[in-house]
């Protein structure tokens, strides 16, 4: 047995608990940077006023991973899966409130030592409190 991942017990105690909501005002340049990063030239979002459905991946991910790595001593994380539900397009000028939650966590012994399989979900609502998207992702921390 390799050493336990430091901080994993704290994370386990948080499974199923929503993290503090965070607000993300959507700016045109965020959308433009996203479509440039994908290399997406669709005229629907070329002017940066409306975001492609996968833009939800850019909302809150950085803070989530920072918070996660501050809690658990993972050396790295590897994305294992993504599931998106898109209810309405995110537009420039929207203020999106995202709530993240770790919904599943299990540990396993792997070639690289102790590994944690984590499922986390984010729920995004706009300034009118309308649900715009849900995102569930599976990640391996090791």
């Amino acid at each position, binding site marked *: 047995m390799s050493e336990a991942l430091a901080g994993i017990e704290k994370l386990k105690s948080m499974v199923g608990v929503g993290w503090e909501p965070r607000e993300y005002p959507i700016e045109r340049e*965020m959308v433009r*940077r*996203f479509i*440039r*990063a*994908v*290399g*997406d030239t*669709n*005229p*629907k979002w070329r002017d940066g006023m409306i975001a*492609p*459905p*996968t833009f939800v*991946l*850019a909302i809150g*991910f*950085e*803070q989530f*991973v920072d918070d996660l790595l501050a809690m658990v001593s993972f*050396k*790295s*994380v*590897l*994305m*294992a*899966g*993504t*599931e*998106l*539900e*898109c209810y309405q397009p995110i537009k420039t000028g929207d203020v999106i409130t995202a709530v993240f939650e770790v919904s599943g966590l299990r540990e396993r012994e792997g*070639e*690289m030592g102790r590994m944690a399989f984590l499922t986390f979900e984010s729920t995004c609502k706009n300034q009118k409190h309308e649900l715009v998207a849900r995102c569930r*992702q*599976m990640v391996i921390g*090791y």
Partner: protein
Amino acid sequence: MTKQLSYKDVNVGDGVTPLVKEPTTRQLVVWAGAVGDYTPIHYDKDFARSRGLSGVIVQGQLVGAFLGQMLTDWLGEKGELKKLSCSYKGMNYPGEALTCKGEVTKKYDKDGEHFIECKIWAENPKGEKTASGRAVVTLPAGG
């Protein structure tokens, strides 16, 4: 502008128009900045090797975004992507072609909307599926 795809023109077994990408290391960095994913396995070769990888790898989420682009390109202005899921099963490396593909598995009307379900996947240059999943989209009925 290409012709709008409509529900009546799509049949089970039809292919989604493939999308070929060839992400560079630079694109991985641009993506890292756009979504705020600074995991070093996507830009630091030595670190990636220390974590058991043969080099820097394409972010799974970027592969997911490529699959999303394939679908929204295919759907045209009036189609909508409702759900997308994918599991990342293998590694994609920068400098290699990454081909996104899909196939229609189901079509049905529900609550006045015209739904199409597809299986979707990404292939590396050897034709191995490095990511696969499903999508649900809606299309206009068509005349």
